[in-house]
């Protein structure tokens, strides 16, 4: 029993790491531009598929193939694929900001909800046209042999996901709180107009926010693909759970978002032990519960509208 629990917690932490990355992505764009990327989930899928295509190219397979067969990409190939995924996703984030967010940001009516949603639908339909709806098994960069840890079996990819997520969080936290770039981002978040009067290029900061946020989504997709197979539909639930994590922790607080992501991953994996069907329902029930008592999340700041 304890082994099963420990197993569940460990894999929950790994998936939670991916959720935390997604949650952090939501938090970054929300604090700087007051907008969210409603196709963040599709960006997760896109990250997985771009990494996968890079691996195909490296192995000399056509991009449109849907299986790796016996081929196993080396560590170098995986690193290049990671770089490609991050780079392309960053570019997509920039594109999304320019055509989908900037024209609508700060205006009433939340038209950006529709435009970012539409962007994701386009990405997904392009993916479907190329690869079709079937999921693809992607080989992990650290092999697929199970490691024994505290008496339970863990896949190395899960440990890698957890490790990478934790490192990214620490680096991000350091950048936000200790560097000039981080201060600029927080200044834009607090008040964009005043920040621009102080000589901060708010446009660049906002573009940067979308680039970083999208790259994080791509990263979590890249890390999740070997765990759960790459699928064009994997992103929607990952994105939603990432957002749920962010809501639980508080969208305005990056550290809270990270904690929320991990909490959600563990909760989901524990509920899964008991009943797979109710997994999603339990997750969203928790979100509703948190919102009912603390609408701005557990660690979020109360927002007061001045009258």
């Amino acid at each position, binding site marked *: 029993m304890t082994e099963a629990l420990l197993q569940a917690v460990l894999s929950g932490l790994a998936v939670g790491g991916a959720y935390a990355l997604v949650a952090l992505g939501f938090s970054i764009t929300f604090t700087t531009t007051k907008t969210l990327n*409603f196709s963040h989930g599709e960006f997760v899928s896109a990250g997985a598929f771009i990494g996968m295509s890079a691996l195909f190219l490296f192995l000399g397979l056509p991009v449109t193939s849907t299986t790796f067969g016996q081929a196993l990409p080396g560590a170098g190939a995986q690193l290049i694929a990671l770089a490609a995924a991050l780079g392309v996703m960053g570019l997509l984030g920039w594109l999304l900001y320019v055509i989908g967010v900037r024209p609508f940001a700060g205006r009433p009516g939340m038209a950006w909800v*529709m435009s970012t949603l*539409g962007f994701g*639908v386009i990405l997904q339909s392009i993916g479907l046209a190329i690869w079709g709806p079937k999921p693809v098994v992607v080989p992990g960069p650290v092999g697929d042999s199970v490691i024994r840890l505290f008496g339970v079996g863990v896949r190395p990819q899960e440990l890698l996901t957890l490790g990478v997520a934790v490192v990214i969080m620490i680096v991000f936290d350091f950048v936000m709180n200790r560097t000039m770039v981080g201060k600029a981002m927080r200044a834009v978040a607090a008040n964009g107009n005043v920040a621009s009067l102080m000589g901060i290029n708010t446009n660049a900061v906002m573009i940067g926010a979308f680039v970083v946020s999208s790259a994080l989504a791509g990263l979590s997709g890249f890390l999740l693909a070997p765990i759960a197979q790459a699928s064009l539909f994997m992103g929607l639930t990952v994105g939603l759970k990432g957002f749920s994590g962010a*809501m639980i922790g508080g969208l305005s607080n990056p550290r809270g978002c990270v904690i929320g992501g991990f909490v959600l991953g563990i909760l989901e994996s524990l509920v899964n032990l008991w009943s797979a069907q109710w997994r999603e329902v339990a997750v969203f029930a928790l*979100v509703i519960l948190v919102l009912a008592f603390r609408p701005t999340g557990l660690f979020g700041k109360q927002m007061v509208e001045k009258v």
Partner: protein
Amino acid sequence: MKLSKHFLGATLFALALIGVTSFLGNDYYLRIVFMMCVYYLCAAGMNVLVGYAGQKSLGQAGLFAAGAYAVALLTTRTEISPWLALVLAAVISAVCGVLIALPSLRVKGPYLAMVTLAFGIVVEKLVGEWTDVFGGAQGIYGIKALTWNDQPLTPLQWVWLGIVLCAVTHLLLRNLLQGRFGRALLSLQADEIASSSVGVRVYRAKVIAFVVAAVTCGIAGALVAQQNQYINSDFITFHLSIFILLLVLFGGAGSQYGPLVGAVILTIIDASLARWPSAQHFLYGFLLLFALYFMPGGVAGLLSKWFRKPTSAPEASSAAQGLTRIGPQGEGELLVAQGVTKNFGGVKPAQNVSFKLQRGHIHALIGPNGAGKSTMINMLTGLLDPTEGSIKFLGEEVSNRPVHSICRMGIGRTFQNLRLFADLSVLDNVMLGRHTRMTNGFFATLFAIPSARKQEAATRARALQLLDLVDLLHLAHQPAGSLPYGLQRRVELARALATEPQLLLLDEPAAGLNPQETAELGALLVRIGKCGVTILMVEHHMDLVMSISDHVIVLDYGIKIAEGKPAEVQANPRVVEAYLGVDEPEQATAST
């Protein structure tokens, strides 16, 4: 009458459609027309939610599923009549609508959109994975179709039923949206705080909007399930939610015919691209991304630019009217604040403040910036609750009551930074003020019973009267946001008066007005005072305060430092000190 003319038009249109479809022998075309009707139903309800209430719901597929699976389970597991099942499906969807609306009581904007998205996904997962009940991808067979004379409907009859349902939905929703409810929904979309301050029960209105959208969507789902006699989890996808949203946005959110235009065009596109699903999805994504950019009003918005109706003629002044009586006459204490204290952490904008407002007087609340004047107004109107102390209006406690109910008790207000519903006409803004004084309920409005229509007419007449009082009658049909600043202030004043306040709170009514306008405002306030309205105003223009007020209260750093007649206050050394600092007294005689 205008209403019956529209009724006649819609009926004739529906009959004509029924006639035309009778000659469509082809089942494929009949199917397309039927789907148009189904999607129109979805879109018409969704328009109430998205176009009027301004709530983005991304989970309509969940409500579609609620209706579809309700009829499926009801007719396969019980023996009830298919017609009754259809009605029950609508009820069940309404319950789901309430469920999805509950989070809206706590969260707004993007949060809410994400919650509705999650609702849609949860339903999608449930019907897909809980195979014992919902059958998953296998689906549920043998759903009983609607019957006529004990025979299942023919394809043609299905189309007729669809057309009749659409026409009825259109007429009912038109009744709802053209009067009290439509205005209330539009106002909460524009500004929830202002909306509740004129007495709109914001949460209730939102829940109603969600329920209306849920019912029409549920009926649409039930019709599809009953017509196919089959439903499975492939029907309920995220793309359906997006499609329903797109019907409204592409057609024209907030416009009467937008959903119709959207349903017709998009159903045709959907049918012609059915063979290439990824092209279909690509197009929807493309439309979502760019439609709002190139045509914010949707197709209906573009069309209305070409067929612009001549703007209604300005209202003529209904001759010289005597003074408009608003509040009851009388004397005595109207409002008593006792020991009111408010803490925001370390900031204390009110500390143990007590004062009384006399009926029929013009009171002024003055003090330097940061003295806590606006906070006091916000506590009196319920936007903030005092940390300690009591506020009694006509002997009843005000604090801890919701904003709309305080408005109903008879306290009206204006805002320091104007909060008009900028896109609505001046007349609609003022009519909204009378929202709480109208007694026609949801169903009375829905079915446009005569008393509801009478209420509407009375409200309109009253609003015009008030516009006359503030000299804005000639601008009644202009959008409020297009007026110059000084006139907007007067619109807000008229809106507050329309709530029939006994006490009117004005937060810096003369801010941004030039001396000429300020003098006019002073005269107007005195006129309003004579109509039986007690006034409490926060103001910095001392000449205005000193010339019209009967009684002045002075706050400084949350403490009441003086009150009394204007002249007494002016001479009070503590007041002078608060405004000008400690200095030689003879230098500080100036009134500002």
